[in-house]
């Protein structure tokens, strides 16, 4: 979330969206839109959306801005660009999701008194001039149009990195401090909607006698010990590979070497406090393969009748195991900088 994508890289060209038209629009439009009309229109627009978000376009924004200060409501605008959703380094969809959590929580917490702030989403492709007007060069970008606006550019507060740092919770803090509006606790939406849960629950209830029967008879996949065996080996593999570290710290699979013009990727990171995803999987594989080969030798290859095959398998297994152990020791010493050494009696030196 910390990195932000430069929009200039993508689209806005100076010819496309000059500042002039929107300024002219302000000057020429019949200045005072009746604020009450706009207010009820916004409530109507909001009621159409489940999450309480309003799709904002240039002309609507301009009407909002044209209401004289103090305005009857604040506006929180999320600047979105659909074309950048696919960029993985910038989690715009997740920020957008958190933003929608904020708006839906506001509506849930303040059922009778919810017109102090409106939540908007504005799309880059449709409303380039608004992006230009607010000088939005990179996203994620969230801006608050407070109640008192004398100078649009100065008084509209931009949400800083702190606002994004902890998702909807920090956004809520931003709104509560800058717009002076009570949002209340954030309600996260369950992964599966309520109705779906009920359907699943009912389905499970109907299914359960059959399941119980199958368990009693004993031919489910859960009663196959080889399934459990592979499951445990997999859990072991993922744990020793440090997958949890990769998930919690959001470590990438590999890095691109910036110093290398050929763009070679870095798979192994030197330093014990950090690891890359691919590196973890590689070592996790080495950790696991040795044990698997040993088990293969002691439990499977003993049952073979052919001496030659046994010899071949043993030689292969031992060689690979030796190589794997030696590789992990080497990698560990390289990564941590420790040299593991035996302690000899001092008179041997």
């Amino acid at each position, binding site marked *: 979330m910390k990195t932000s994508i430069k929009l200039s890289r993508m689209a806005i060209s100076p010819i496309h969206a000059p500042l002039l038209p929107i300024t002219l629009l302000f000057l020429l439009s019949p200045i005072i839109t009746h604020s009450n009309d706009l207010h009820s229109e916004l409530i109507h627009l909001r009621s159409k959306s489940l999450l309480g978000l309003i799709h904002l376009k240039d002309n609507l924004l301009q009407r909002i801005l044209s209401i004289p200060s103090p305005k009857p409501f604040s506006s929180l605008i999320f600047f979105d660009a659909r074309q950048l959703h696919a960029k993985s380094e910038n989690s715009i969809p997740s920020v957008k999701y958190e933003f929608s959590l904020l708006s839906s929580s506001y509506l849930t917490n303040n059922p009778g008194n919810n017109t102090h702030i409106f939540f908007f989403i504005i799309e880059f492709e449709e409303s380039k001039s608004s992006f230009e007007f607010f000088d939005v060069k990179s996203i994620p970008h969230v801006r608050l149009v407070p109640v008192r606006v004398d100078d649009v550019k100065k008084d509209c507060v931009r949400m800083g990195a702190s606002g994004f740092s902890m998702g909807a919770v920090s956004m809520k803090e931003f709104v509560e401090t800058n717009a002076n509006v009570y949002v209340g606790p954030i309600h996260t939406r369950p992964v599966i909607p309520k109705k779906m849960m009920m359907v699943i629950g009912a389905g499970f209830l109907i299914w*359960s006698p059959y399941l119980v029967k199958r368990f*009693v008879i004993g031919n489910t996949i859960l009663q196959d010990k080889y399934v459990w065996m592979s499951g445990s080996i997999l*859990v072991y593999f993922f*744990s020793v590979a*440090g997958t949890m570290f990769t998930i919690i710290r959001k470590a990438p699979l590999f890095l691109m070497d910036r110093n290398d013009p050929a763009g070679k990727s870095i798979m192994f990171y030197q330093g014990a406090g950090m690891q890359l995803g691919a590196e973890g999987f590689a070592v996790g594989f080495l950790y696991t393969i040795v*044990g698997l080969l040993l088990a293969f*030798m002691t439990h499977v290859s*003993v*049952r073979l009748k052919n001496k030659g095959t046994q010899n071949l398998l043993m030689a292969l297994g031992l060689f690979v195991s030796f190589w794997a152990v030696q590789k992990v020791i080497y990698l*560990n010493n390289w990564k941590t900088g420790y040299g593991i050494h035996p302690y000899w009696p001092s008179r041997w030196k």
Partner: protein
Amino acid sequence: MLCQLQFLTKNGIYDFWNWFDDRTWYPLGRVIGGTVYPGLTLTAGTLWWILNSLNIPLSVETVCVFTAPTFSALAAWATYLLTKEVKGTGAGLTAAALLAMVPSYISRSVAGSYDNEAVAIFALIFTFYLYIKTLNTGSLFYATLNALAYFYMVCSWGGYTFIINLIPMHALLCIVTGRYSPRLYIAYAPLVILGTLLAALVPVVGFNAVMTSEHFASFLVFLILNVVGLVYYIKGMLTPKMFKVAVTLVVSAGLIVCCAVVAVLVALVASSPTKGWSGRSLSLLDPTYASKYIPIIASVSEHQPPTWPSYFMDINVLAFLVPAGIIACFLPLTDASSFVILYLVTSVYFSGVMVRLMLVLAPAACIMSGIALSSAFGVFTRSIKFASIGKQDDAGDIGNGVTQNHVVKPDRNEEPPKEKASRKKKKEKENVEKAPTAAKKSERRLLMLPMEASVVAILLLVLLGAFYVVHCVWAAAEAYSAPSIVLTSQSHDGLHVFDDFREAYAWLSHNTDVDDKVASWWDYGYQTTAMANRTVIVDNNTWNNTHIATVGTAMSSPEKAAWEIFNSLDVKYVLVVFGGLVGYPSDDINKFLWMVRIGGGVFPHIKEPDYLRDGQYRIDNMATPTMLNCLMYKLSYYRFVETDGKGFDRVRRTEIGKKHFKLTHFEEVFTTHHWMVRIYKLKPPKNRLRGKTKKSKSKPTSTISKRSATQKKNPWQ
């Protein structure tokens, strides 16, 4: 902790139970009986009492030092017993030998490491052993012992929740996979009933034993087990046809009751704010929980997720052997072996979330590796031993006779002893009856590997074991033997010793009043209490988040606000740890963001972004004004520029942002030889004005040693 033991030995158990310690967590104080796990203190106290009644006059400190090593020996013994129950004596001995050396456990059991985990790991393994023993024998005697062992574990460590979730999981697994037996009922029911009652006796747990959802799994499984037990009982009484009818009737009615119970449970749990789970347990299930919401948990380095070298450091070559152990436990799968598999899988998952739980994984890894090594050695040595015999007499009787023994061997523990005995008798009968069927006999082949390959394999395994020993000795020597209070560093011109901590604590104890309160970050709380014998505001037992947050807020505030906070807490001295001069990375400036986060969690005016420039934590001239004016920065870098003229911080590898400044509300009273500990005194209110206008007190001297020499004088004399 040491104070607790001293109190216990001096005043006895009842006074200890009701002890209100007013020296820690000033000004709150602490109800010791209700906030500590008393297991360790009571154990050490009992040891001391026994030794003294045998006329062995050991001091309390000596007993503390040797408690952990004693219990590590007991843990190895318990590991032997547990593994023996699972896979026989050979595996048990190997596992015990591995556990005796495993670095992860050495870190908690070296002499002088006086920590809950030292006794808790023994209690954990022993509880598991008794559970398996009960499961194998069906004896109520062992079941009762099991509940007592569980009680001891609850007394010792918060990690007991692992047991009370793992055993129900295993019981459920047994039921699901159709392995229900009366022995399972005997092993499980007394543990839940007696264990929960006993656990509720420990004040720190109390009604949590029945109120928090960490314990709910055990009750739910208890319910299911009773239902299943009833079903099996009825099945034994009715004819198969009647039983079928009964099942259809009962299943439909029972399901409705079950659903109602589950719904009530879910509603109860959902109504509590954290859904009934404590933060530490939540962080295990949802690994990202703690790092998002609970800075006091996320700030501790032990609670970080480990990278792969951590596994190599802590369990070393066992990481290679464990998969083989898992497979060996599946062939054949018994109640006992399924339990150790479950233990391994859950502990390896949890260790992946929190590096501290590597300690729980270590015994499981030792058991698995012990089983793997012992079965591998079994196969390889058998291949060498009988290779010559096999050659001489290919289809010979001797070979076959031996073969049968060896092939049957792995099955020995498949069944519990009672059934095993009856089976054996049956087998013998069958053997007698079918003795002449020689054709069948010759079909059974000696399961062997080629001799040469076996020799190489044994050599490699011995090599692997030797490497394990070398690594463990190395790890014990390098990582766990050095006292953490005296630091050393090896450079090209020899060994440097940094004894700054003891210097600072000695200064505190000699130059300050007994009743003076010292504030520092909580990491140094225990040390200050024990070594300087002064009252601290917060210590390493982090039970009160708000109090820690207050100290964090003070450190993050500007001087005046900080002075007010500290003054309100009656603090006289503030101690900061600073590594910028010698390059000691775990100093307070590096921990500072956690102080901000923990402080900000309670006091919203402290905001992390105010201390970050574009999301980066920096202390150079690009640092934010809030950062440069906060107390921690000022106390750490006060007069730092006088050391080299530039103020170059060797940890952050940069020149500091604000070099020349004066303190208005604090005065420096002592800085240790390497500037690692700096102690400041709060200026009394009436002197503050004088302190502001006063010109620089004394001309700064050029070298560190000279300065510290002048500083060592007590400024109030």
